[in-house]
């Protein structure tokens, strides 16, 4: 089993990119379709909900700082229910990995290489994340330490360059249609920030578990801030209706940057952001899913599973959807509820049981 340890800081960096990875590309479209000019408020609300959920997750995780959720769910809820909750949790992370392997390919075929079979992109991504996951949590932690600062730096550069194209009046009226659409729109961002529930698996591998509280709050806070700013900008530059209409608004935001006739066409940077983000997101999800599965099956090691499971996930990614329309419909309307049932449902349920039964492995 995993023997490595990471620092809380590395965990934070992993979680930040694991949420932003595809969120920053796909979410604005989903949310703007509901909330229009108020999409940024939806992101704000979703992130606040995410922060509340972080509190619950950390409370639960720190009750059992030396165990993963798969291990203590049986202890808390009994063997049968515990196993069911465990597999529900694991399946979500694995299915999401396959979902975003597919997304990775969809983006690249749409934006850069339309003739290349999507399978090629998916296989290359899966080779990369399988390799990292095979290396273990320490390897991933170091990768995050190296890549995340670059990632965030590029995001901020791109955002900074499009400030001058903003039309702030596009952001008004604020809540012209009442708060209803804002709430509806906040569900996808909430589901994405709730990815912090990966911490339920990571806490035992953090060298000082108590620090994971601050790290998780920081991660969700940073993500929320970037989400809100990015969405405000997309709406102010492109218009709310356009954001709702575009396949990848963030891409257009970068592609329209034009500073004094010499700094333009920076969309190549977008590729770096996309590939890095999706890679780290896939690493985290795959790792959590695989480690969970091996613990669920009571295996000695998760490494023999890495290759066969990645083959399964790539195939699943292919058969799961017929078209990008299906991906978007599922991603915007079905997936968030599925995600929340796992990411929010399981920790809340387990925490209640732990309270009622007074269980904790802290001494």
């Amino acid at each position: 089993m995993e023997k490595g340890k990471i620092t809380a800081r590395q965990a934070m960096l992993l979680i930040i990119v694991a949420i932003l990875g595809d969120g920053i590309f796909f979410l604005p479209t989903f949310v703007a379709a509901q909330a229009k000019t108020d999409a940024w408020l939806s992101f704000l609300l979703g992130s606040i909900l995410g922060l509340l959920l972080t509190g619950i997750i950390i409370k639960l995780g720190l009750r059992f700082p030396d165990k993963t959720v798969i291990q203590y769910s049986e202890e808390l809820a009994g063997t049968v229910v515990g196993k069911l909750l465990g597999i529900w949790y694991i399946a979500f992370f694995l299915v999401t990995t396959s979902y975003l392997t597919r997304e990775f390919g969809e983006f690249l075929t749409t934006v850069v290489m339309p003739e290349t079979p999507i399978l090629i992109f998916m296989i290359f991504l899966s080779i990369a994340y399988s390799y990292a996951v095979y290396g273990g949590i320490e390897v991933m932690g170091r990768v995050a330490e190296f890549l995340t600062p670059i990632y965030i730096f590029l995001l901020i550069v791109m955002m900074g360059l499009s400030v001058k194209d903003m039309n702030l009046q596009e952001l008004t009226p604020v809540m012209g249609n009442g708060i209803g659409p804002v709430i509806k729109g906040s569900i996808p961002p909430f589901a994405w920030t709730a990815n912090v529930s990966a911490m339920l698996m990571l806490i035992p591998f953090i060298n000082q578990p108590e620090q994971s509280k601050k790290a998780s709050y920081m991660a969700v806070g940073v993500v929320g801030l970037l989400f809100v700013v990015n969405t405000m900008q997309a709406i102010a530059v492109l218009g709310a209706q356009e954001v709702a209409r575009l396949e990848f608004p963030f891409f257009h935001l970068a592609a329209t940057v034009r500073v004094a006739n010499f700094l333009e066409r920076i969309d190549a940077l977008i590729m770096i952001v996309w590939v890095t983000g999706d890679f780290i997101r896939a690493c985290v999800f795959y790792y959590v899913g695989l480690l969970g599965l091996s613990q669920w099956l009571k295996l000695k090691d998760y490494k023999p599973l890495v290759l066969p499971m990645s083959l399964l996930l790539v195939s699943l990614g292919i058969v799961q959807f017929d078209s990008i329309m299906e991906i978007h419909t599922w991603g915007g309307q079905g997936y968030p509820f599925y995600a929340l049932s796992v990411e929010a449902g399981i920790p809340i349920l387990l925490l209640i049981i732990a309270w009622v039964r007074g269980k904790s492995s802290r001494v």
Partner: protein
Amino acid sequence: MSLRRRRFLTVMFLIFVLLLSGCWSRREIDDLAIVTGIALDLGPDNKVHMTIQLVKPEVLAKRAQGGGGGGNADKAYWLLESHGLTFVDAVRKFNTLSPRQLFLAHNVIIIFGEDLARRGIASTLDRISRTKNLRRTIWVMVAKGKAREVLEAELEPEYLSAVAIGHMIEGREVYSQSYGIDLKDFLRVLTGSSPNPVASRIELRKEFTNREFWEVDEDGQGEAGQGEEDAKEHINKEARTQGREQAKKSVVLTGAAVFKKDKLMGWFDPTETRGLLWIQGKMRRGIIIINGPEGEKMAFESIRSKSEVVPKIHQGKLIMRVKIDEENDFAEDMGFVPLTPENIPGIEKKIAAAIQKDIEAALRKGQKEYKSDIFGFGAAVHRKYPQQWKAIKGRWEELFPQLEVQVEVKSKIRRRGMSTEPPKPGGKE
């Protein structure tokens, strides 16, 4: 690691290197035809006729080196025309005409012909916004007449008319009598709550650029000797051909093309365009000419301006208030009246009145004649009164032409350039 294993790995890595050099969607630069301009016209068969301007990099390179000498013999571009039932059909058809693959990412402008624009361009824009390589920083314009002809225009000293027109639009802010909008903003306005965009208007001028040559030709018979006569004859001949060569079409970029939804309604002349720019707060710099205290012309250059469109509901009636604050430099004085703190307020009022006249001209045509809310008044109401907007949204097209618009202009004169007074002959007493 054993030797065999190491060898195996080396071979594997070499194979990977081979894979690196090629991928499915690669495109080499010399297989590409770089598109700089796209013109779309409505053909007689009701199809979209598409003309594209393609760069000949070889010619550009030769000119840059100063070689060639062929002069006009080789143009730096070539034009291709194709037509199809839809935009994408026309685009792909180019592959049956061009030896090189089209590359759209460096396109600068997209020009709609008047006929096509009057019929509506939303369906064409759909395809354009789906195309991944066509960037949203391209300029959108409407040609008076056929769009194709604009691509054939010659604009010295540039070799590519599309690129030249792109520069002209970028430079429009110095004079502010023409409109410029890129695809991103055009789509933003079109999908917003006042869905009436405005685009650049471009017009072709058929004009001889080098008149002197023709004058030489007319009184060429002189008292010169035979040898000189021959030389002159030679010059004339050359001048004539050169004159004809240069008697090409040039373009002028003034005014604006006004849309209602996605259909072209008509044109704004330079004054109306300026009025529109004032209202939208897009005015950058412009010359304002007024009659000075002694009836002479005085020119001011507006250097900074701010506009605010505020809807107001007054006794159940919707009123638009347009407030403009602007600052001027004193640019030119045709008389000899120096500016003093005493006469400045009066002159400032005159400037404000001149601006107000521009605005009223724009309102008259946009509001009363075309009935198209290009000013964004509907969007302003939506922003300030979202609840009331829901009620009047459906009737806005009827309400808008009757809307009362109050214009308030405040002008200031700040500076006067590098001299204090005009150079009066004989100096000041």
